[in-house]
C-alpha cells in the first residue's frame, strides 16, 4: 500500500460528507418528517421583566388545528417548570409567575401544522405587570437593585466570585513596577447565529416505550444523560440523534426550553413534535456569548519587560447562569489571559452577575472565554507598547515565552505543552513585509491618511480536558472512538464527538487510514447517534481532534497490535520479528515478506491463531493528560476612510500553528471561517437592548453577519510545533482564528489613530464609532 493510495495524515482529501450536501441531500433536523407529526411554536415575553398575572389559552385552543397549549403551571405539575443548567444553576423552562428576559418562553402551542401553530401563538392572551428591568451589571450589583432571581436563597444579583493566580505576589509586582498601564475593555454580547437555527423533533413511541429526539445538539450523549436525569426516563430509553447540523459554534451546547417542552409534549400526546426556531427567536432568546466588562492592568519595567497582569471582570450572565463551561470553571478558561508572554505574576478575578437578559454565555467559536482572555492581553500589550513608545512587534519579541521554556507553567497554573512564538511572529512579519508597511504608514500619515498595522500573537487553550480538572455535571471530559475492521478490510469508525461542519467524517477516516494503512475511501465514520456512538462529550472548544482524535489513533493502534499477532501467524514468524513499515507488517530484514491490513483483517475472521479472540475491533476512551495550546501570529493592515469612518481590511495574514495537520485543506478552511467569525464581532456584531430591555438586534437586518463583500481574501501560513502529549501531535484549530483575529483588527485600527492620542476602542468598531473619534480629533472629512 502506498501513501498515495492510503491518503492518511497530511493529505488534502476531499470531504466525504460533501456529496450529500452538494446534492441537497443532507438531513438536518427540520428535514425530519414523521407520520402524524405535530408542530410546536412558542409564545414569548414582550417584557424584559414582568409578573405574569394571567394566561388565557381559550381562544387559541378553540382554533381549528390547535391541539394543546402548554404553560408553566402544567409543567410545574410534572416537576418540569425548571431545569438544571450545566453550571449548577437552574433555569425556567416555562414561567409560572414571572418573566426575566425579553422573548423568554411563556407558553407553547401544539398544532397540526406550522402555520396554525404560529397563528395560535398570537391568540394566547397573557396579562403582564411590568417590573423594572435590570440591564447594567454594575447597577445590578447595587444593594437597591431589583432582584432578578428571588427564587434563590441569596438575595442579590451576584452569582459567584472566582479567582486565579497569586494575589499577594501580583500586588507586590505592581507596587514595585516602574510602569503600570490600565484599561477598561468591554467585549459586548454577541450571538453565534449559525445559519441553521435550533430545533428538535421529539418522538415518544409507546409501542417500544422509547423516546427519540433529533436535536440540534453539539453534545448528544451529555444531553441524553441530562434528559434522563431531568425526566426520570431510564437512559437506555432515550435516543438522541444529532443529524447533519448547520453550524454550532457553541450555540448548540446548551439545553434550551424548547427541547424540553417538545419532549414533554410528545410524552403527553404520544405523537412526534417538531419545534424549529425562527431566526428572531434564535437571536433573541438563545444563549449569547461574551458580555465581559474587563478592567485590566499591566505592570512592566521601563524597558518593556512585562512583570505582572491584574484583571477584574464583571460578567453579565443574564437571568440564569446557563454558560456551557466545564463545571469547575465558571469563567471558563479566562485565566489563560497571560497569553504568550512570560511574566512573574498574575491575578484574575471574575464576578458573575444576573441581569434581565437572556441566559448564557456560551462560547462563540471559542474555548470557554479564551477570546475574552486573548483580547485582554493582546490589547494590553499594545497599550503598554504605546506607553513606552515601543514597536508592538518588538515588545512581543521581548516578552515571549521562549521555545526552551516549554512545557511552560503559567502564573495562573496552566502548563503550556509546546510552542515557538518568536518563529511564528518572525514568519508573519517577513511574509507581510512589516518594515516596508511601517515605512508606507509613515509616508501616508505625513499625507494625512490613516493606515494601521495590528499584530496579535495569541495562545489558545483547547482540548478539554483532563479528568482531574474537567467535567460537565460530574461527567469527565474524556472522549471516545470505536473501530471495527470488517473481513474485507473495510472499516467503520464511531466517535463520541459530532461534526457541525468540521469534516470529522473525513479527518477521522484519515487518522484510521494512516494508522492502519487502509485507503481512506474504505473507511466510514459515524457519529451523533447515542444508540450507536460511544459515549463522548461532544464537539465544541476545539476538543474533537485533541480528545476523540487521540482516542481514534489509540484505538487504531490497539487494532494494529492485535494485527501484529495475526500477521506473525500468517508469516510464521515471531511477532517481535515484524515491524510496521510502509503501511504493512514486514519481516525485519526481509521487507518483501509482509502482510497488509486487508490480508490480516480477512485472517482475523477466517484464519486466526489458536487462542486469539477472533475479529478485529478496538475502542478507546481517551483521558487527555493535558490540554493543547495552539498559537499563532496574525498581522492586519487597515485603511480608514476619513469621510465615513469605514475601516477597510486591506490585508490580513494568519500564521497558525495547530501542531500536526491531518487535512491541510480542512485546516485552511477552518482558519478562513474562524477569521471571519473573528472579524464579525470586531467590526459588526453586537446585541443591543433599549432602556426597557427590549432587544433591538433580533434579525439579520440589525445583527450584521459579514457577507462576502466585507470579508477580505484571507492569507494563511503555518508553522508546525506538534503537541508532545497528543498521540498524533495535533492540537485543534477551529477556534484559534476567532480568538486571534479581533485584537489584530482592533490593534490595527488603534495603530492607525495612535498618533492622534487614541489608545483603545471597544468592539465592534463601527464606522459611526470611528467617525465620532475622527470628529473629536478634528480629522474627519
Amino acid at each position: 500500500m502506498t501513501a498515495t493510495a492510503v491518503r492518511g495524515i497530511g493529505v488534502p482529501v476531499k470531504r466525504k460528507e460533501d456529496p450529500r450536501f452538494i446534492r441537497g441531500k443532507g438531513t438536518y433536523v427540520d428535514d425530519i418528517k414523521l407520520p402524524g407529526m405535530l408542530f410546536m411554536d412558542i409564545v414569548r415575553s414582550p417584557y424584559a421583566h414582568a409578573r405574569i398575572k394571567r394566561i388565557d389559552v381559550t381562544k387559541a385552543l378553540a382554533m381549528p388545528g390547535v391541539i394543546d397549549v402548554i404553560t408553566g403551571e402544567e409543567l410545574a405539575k410534572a416537576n418540569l417548570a425548571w431545569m438544571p443548567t450545566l453550571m449548577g444553576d437552574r433555569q425556567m423552562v416555562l414561567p409560572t409567575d414571572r418573566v426575566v428576559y425579553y422573548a423568554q418562553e411563556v407558553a407553547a402551542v401544539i398544532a397540526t401544522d406550522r402555520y396554525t401553530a404560529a397563528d395560535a401563538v398570537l391568540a394566547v392572551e397573557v396579562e403582564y405587570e411590568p417590573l423594572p428591568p435590570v440591564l447594567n451589571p454594575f447597577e445590578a450589583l447595587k444593594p437597591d437593585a431589583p432582584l432578578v432571581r428571588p427564587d434563590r436563597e441569596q438575595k442579590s444579583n451576584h452569582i459567584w466570585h472566582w479567582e486565579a493566580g497569586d494575589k499577594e505576589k501580583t500586588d507586590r509586582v505592581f507596587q514595585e513596577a516602574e510602569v503600570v498601564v490600565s484599561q477598561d475593555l468591554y467585549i459586548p454580547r454577541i450571538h453565534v447565529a449559525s445559519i441553521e437555527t435550533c430545533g428538535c423533533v421529539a418522538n415518544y413511541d409507546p409501542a417500544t416505550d422509547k423516546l427519540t429526539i433529533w436535536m440540534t445538539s453539539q453534545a448528544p450523549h451529555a444531553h441524553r444523560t441530562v434528559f434522563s436525569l431531568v425526566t426520570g426516563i431510564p437512559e437506555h430509553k432515550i435516543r438522541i440523534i444529532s443529524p447533519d447540523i448547520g453550524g454550532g459554534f457553541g450555540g448548540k451546547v446548551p439545553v434550551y426550553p424548547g427541547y424540553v417542552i417538545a419532549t414533554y409534549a410528545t410524552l403527553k400526546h404520544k405523537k412526534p413534535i417538531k419545534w424549529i426556531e425562527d431566526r428572531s427567536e434564535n437571536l433573541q432568546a438563545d444563549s449569547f456569548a461574551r458580555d465581559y466588562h474587563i478592567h485590566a492592568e499591566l505592570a512592566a519595567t521601563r524597558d518593556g519587560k512585562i512583570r505582572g497582569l491584574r484583571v477584574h471582570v464583571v460578567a453579565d450572565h443574564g437571568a440564569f447562569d446557563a454558560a456551557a463551561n466545564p463545571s469547575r470553571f465558571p469563567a471558563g478558561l479566562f485565566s489563560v489571559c497571560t497569553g504568550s508572554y512570560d511574566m512573574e505574576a498574575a491575578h484574575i478575578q471574575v464576578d458573575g452577575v444576573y441581569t434581565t437578559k437572556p441566559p448564557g454565555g456560551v462560547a462563540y467559536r471559542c474555548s470557554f472565554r479564551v477570546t475574552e482572555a486573548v483580547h485582554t492581553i493582546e490589547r494590553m500589550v499594545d497599550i503598554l507598547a504605546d506607553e513606552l513608545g515601543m514597536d508592538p512587534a518588538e515588545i512581543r519579541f521581548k516578552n515571549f515565552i521562549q521555545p526552551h521554556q516549554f512545557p511552560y507553567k503559567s502564573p495562573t497554573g496552566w502548563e503550556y505543552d509546546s510552542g515557538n512564538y518568536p518563529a511564528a511572529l518572525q514568519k508573519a512579519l517577513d511574509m507581510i513585509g512589516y518594515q516596508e508597511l511601517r515605512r508606507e504608514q509613515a509616508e501616508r500619515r505625513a499625507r494625512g491618511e490613516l493606515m494601521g498595522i495590528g499584530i496579535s500573537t495569541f495562545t489558545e487553550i483547547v482540548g478539554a480536558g483532563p479528568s482531574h480538572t474537567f467535567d460537565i455535571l460530574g461527567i469527565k471530559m474524556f472522549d471516545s472512538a470505536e473501530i471495527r475492521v470488517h473481513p474485507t478490510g473495510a472499516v467503520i469508525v464511531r466517535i463520541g464527538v459530532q461534526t457541525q461542519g468540521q469534516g470529522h467524517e473525513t479527518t477521522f477516516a484519515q487518522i484510521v487510514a494512516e494508522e492502519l494503512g487502509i485507503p481512506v475511501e474504505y473507511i466510514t465514520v459515524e457519529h451523533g447517534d447515542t444508540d450507536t456512538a460511544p459515549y463522548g462529550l461532544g464537539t465544541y472548544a476545539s476538543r474533537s481532534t485533541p480528545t476523540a482524535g487521540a482516542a481514534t489513533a489509540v484505538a487504531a493502534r490497539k487494532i494494529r497490535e492485535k494485527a501484529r499477532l495475526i500477521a506473525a501467524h500468517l508469516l510464521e514468524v515471531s511477532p517481535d520479528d515484524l515491524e510496521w513499515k510502509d503501511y504493512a507488517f514486514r519481516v525485519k530484514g526481509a521487507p518483501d515478506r509482509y502482510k497488509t491490513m486487508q490480508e490480516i483483517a480477512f485472517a482475523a475472521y477466517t484464519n486466526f491463531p489458536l487462542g486469539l479472540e477472533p475479529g478485529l475491533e478496538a475502542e478507546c476512551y481517551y483521558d487527555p493528560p493535558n490540554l493543547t495550546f495552539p498559537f499563532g501570529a496574525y498581522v492586519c493592515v487597515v485603511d480608514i476612510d476619513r469621510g465615513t469612518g469605514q475601516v477597510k481590511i486591506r490585508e490580513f495574514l494568519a500564521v497558525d500553528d495547530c501542531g500536526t495537520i491531518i487535512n491541510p485543506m480542512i485546516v485552511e478552511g477552518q482558519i478562513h471561517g474562524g477569521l471571519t467569525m473573528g472579524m464579525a464581532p470586531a467590526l459588526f456584531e453586537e446585541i443591543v437592548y433599549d432602556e426597557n430591555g427590549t432587544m433591538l438586534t433580533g434579525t439579520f437586518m440589525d445583527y450584521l453577519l459579514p457577507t462576502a463583500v466585507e470579508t477580505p481574501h484571507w492569507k494563511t501560513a503555518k508553522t508546525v510545533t506538534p503537541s508532545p502529549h497528543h498521540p498524533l501531535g495535533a492540537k485543534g484549530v477551529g477556534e484559534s482564528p476567532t480568538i486571534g483575529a479581533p485584537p489584530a483588527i482592533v490593534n490595527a485600527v488603534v495603530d492607525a489613530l495612535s498618533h492622534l492620542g487614541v489608545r483603545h476602542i471597544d468592539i465592534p468598531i463601527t464606522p459611526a464609532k470611528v467617525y465620532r473619534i475622527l470628529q473629536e480629533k478634528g480629522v474627519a472629512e
Partner: protein
Amino acid sequence: METLPIQVTVNGRTYTAEVEPRLLLVHFLRDVLNLTGTHIGCDTTSCGACTVLWNGRPVKSCTVFAVQVDGGEILTVEGLERDGQLHPVQEGFWEEHGLQCGFCTPGMMMTAVALLNENPDPTEEEIRKAISGNLCRCTGYVNIVKAIQYAARKLREGATVHVGGA
C-alpha cells in the same frame, strides 16, 4: 382556510397542488414536495439559504408565495445534477472545499448558477457582490469564491450542462 390551485414545474417535473395563498414557496418545496435541500435560515430575506431559480432568476423562496409561481419553472439544488453528472458548480464546491456545515450551500450554489448564466467569466469582486445576499457562517467565503471560479472555468471549457429550469 381558503386554498388556490397552482401548477408549477420544479426541476423539470410538473406538479399541481391546492395551497393556502399565504404558503411560502420555501414551505411548498420543503413540506409539500419534500425537496428539503432548500433551507431556511432567517425570516427577513437576509441569509439566502432558501435561494432557488424562478424562471432562471435567483429568488429567496422565503419571500415568494407559492401561488406567485403558478405556471412558472423552479430549479432547486436537487435539479442541478443531470444524468448522474454533477453541475460544475456542485463539482467546484466539492473540489475547492467551498462548504463546511452545508446549510447555506444549496442557496449559495443556486446564486452561483444564476451568476454564471449571466456572466460566464466573473471577477472575484463580481462573484463576491453576486453572493453578498447569501450568508455563510463557516467558510469565510474564500473557498466559495474559488469554487465559483472553478465552475466558471469548467463551463467556459464547454462542459455540457443544462441550467436555468427544465
